[in-house]
């Protein structure tokens, strides 16, 4: 007797397998939805964490690259005795002689407070400072004028002020008009313009800027620079950094502080990603719990569907047919959860990023990994129940109810 040919086992068609894998989900919708929810929460947490941090760091990187990483800031430090040191008046000119330096601008600290008008009590200083500023400052620190005009060669000699972004807000000035004045140390200063925020030089934001000659003439400024902003060629930032202290104050190089503001932003971006690990860990725990939920549901499903399994065996299903049906169902269940989780994670990322005006970045590893992890989880969680279903004796499944 020959058995080949007449008794060939047929594989399930992909369309039939797809239909079979949905049987349990269609007949027990609520339960399927709840167990998929576990996976969805885990995947959503991971996608959102990766998406949010990617969006935030993309935003920071955009800012950093727009502002440039070649800005160096020279400030006077402290003397050995603890007093405030002074940068020599020649510091700017000396720094400008370094070949790799492209721009040098400076500000000087003017003593005194500034008020909206002469009637404001002198105690309401608003924590504002008056700074003398050189004329090319804006381009060097990477900010721009929001309203009105910046200082020029003419207005630098006159009692004219330009307000930093925060300074304008605290003084209650949101637009610039002709003849507008503020009160500084018994002198009226005419407001010429308002600046945008200076991310790399936040000191400027709370400053009222006047020209060096005007500061010396009207505000009894001593002419010593307080901060010098240096732009170096990108390839020589470190070399310039090393030269700056000795160049700015050859007599006492140790009394000079040199810093690179963009380094702080990069550190900020790094600090955010360490925070991510915590949330990724939480997402992984949620995924694990979701996986246990899927495994649990599948085991219950196999027990409940004994008669279906027995019937299918009687209709000619092999153990392999039963195994692949339940495995496909578990994977489908997890995949639905994973897809929902990716959707929810992406949506929350998009909402959050758009409220913060950040670019929406959902890395491939987040959504691809989310879907991939869901498939793996479904396969792992469904394997044991599927094997159990396939091992079930058809006679017991059908007749022992």
């Amino acid at each position, binding site marked *: 007797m020959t058995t080949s040919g*007449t*008794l060939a*086992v047929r594989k*399930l068609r992909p369309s039939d397998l797809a239909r079979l894998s949905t*049987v349990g989900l269609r007949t027990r919708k609520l339960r399927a939805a709840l167990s998929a929810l576990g996976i969805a929460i885990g995947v959503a947490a991971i996608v959102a964490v990766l998406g949010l941090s990617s969006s935030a760091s993309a935003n920071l990187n955009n800012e950093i690259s727009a502002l440039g990483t070649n800005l160096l800031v020279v400030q006077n430090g402290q003397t050995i005795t603890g007093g405030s040191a002074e940068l020599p008046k020649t510091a700017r000119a000396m720094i400008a002689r370094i070949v790799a330096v492209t721009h040098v601008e400076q500000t000087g600290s003017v003593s005194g407070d500034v008020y909206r008008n002469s009637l404001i009590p002198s105690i309401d200083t608003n924590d504002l400072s008056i700074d003398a500023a050189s004329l090319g400052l804006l381009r060097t620190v990477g900010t721009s004028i929001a309203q009105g005009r910046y200082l020029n060669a003419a207005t630098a000699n006159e009692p004219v002020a330009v307000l930093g972004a925060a300074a304008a807000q605290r003084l209650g000035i949101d637009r610039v008009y002709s003849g507008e004045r503020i009160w500084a140390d018994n002198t009226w200063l005419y407001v010429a313009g308002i600046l945008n925020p200076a991310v790399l030089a936040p000191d400027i934001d709370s400053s009222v800027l006047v020209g060096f000659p005007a500061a010396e003439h009207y505000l009894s400024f001593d002419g010593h620079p307080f901060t010098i902003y240096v732009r170096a060629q990108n390839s020589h930032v470190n070399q310039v950094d090393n030269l700056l202290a000795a160049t700015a104050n050859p007599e006492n190089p140790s009394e000079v502080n040199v810093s690179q503001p963009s380094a702080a932003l990069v550190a900020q971006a790094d600090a955010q990603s360490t925070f991510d690990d915590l949330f990724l860990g939480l997402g992984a725990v949620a995924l694990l719990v979701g996986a246990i939920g899927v495994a649990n549901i599948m085991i219950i499903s196999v027990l409940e569907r004994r008669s279906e399994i027995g019937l*299918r065996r009687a209709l000619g*299903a092999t153990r392999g047919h039963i195994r692949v049906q339940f495995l496909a169902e578990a994977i489908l269940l997890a995949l639905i959860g994973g897809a929902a989780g990716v959707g929810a994670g992406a949506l929350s990322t998009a909402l959050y990023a758009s409220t913060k005006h950040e670019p929406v970045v959902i890395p491939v590893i987040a959504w691809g990994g989310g879907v991939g992890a869901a498939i793996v989880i479904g396969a792992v969680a469904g394997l044991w129940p599927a094997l159990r279903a396939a091992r079930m004796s058809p006679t017991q499944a059908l007749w022992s109810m």
Partner: protein
Amino acid sequence: MSAETTRPAPCGVADEHLPAQNAADRPVLEVGHVTKVYPSQPPVTALRDVSFTVATGELVAIVGPSGSGKTTLLHLMGTLDRPSSGRVRITGLDVARLSDRELAAMRATQIGFVFQQFFLAEHQTVLDNVADGLLYAGVPQTERRARALDALGLVGLAARPHARPTQLSGGQRQRVAIARALVGSPAIVLADEPTGNLDQAAGQAILGLLKELHHRGVTIVVISHDRDIAARMDRRIEMLDGRIVYDSADDASRSPLPVLEDRPSHEDSRP
């Protein structure tokens, strides 16, 4: 027995899918000296040296009280289990020499099951329930449905292919289950207490349907504890304590139930 079928019937003696037709005299089912022992503590011997054959087109009732071994016999005839010793042949193929996968293919193509509890999928239409009888035989879905419609015609339900099983009466559900058993043009249909969950009238109608299918040439074995049902079948095999105590094919002239009548107590027999 008539070979006249008004449609390309999914079953019947004229069907080309029945390998049993290759040898006209070859029985569809051969059970030879079959013993089944369940390895429990102590071991339970469910069948002892059972032998009979079922020829193509026969309508056979296997009747006996609970514990007589008829369900075990059904498992063996349906290739859902293997005998401890002895031989089961379906369409000439020895079950002992087939792998699990080949036995599954055997069930998919050669054996139709009808159960007491119907076992219909409530989320599917009647048509798809019947079509699932061909799911594991490698038939594409459109053809499965076409053949399912033919099978529904055989059981008198061609008008309601899109109903859900929950919308049907018990008798109609069992007709759907019978259609599912027939859709693959099996060599043999095994019906386990097909009227067990039905009221008297519906049960009679199902028996009438089985007889009608028998007249169309379908080979049917009915398992039942009900001797009234058995009495309506052409051939009766009576079982007790794992043995065949009477086979009407052996001696048609003997009076029915000679052994059973000698025994005063049967848990399932009627008063």
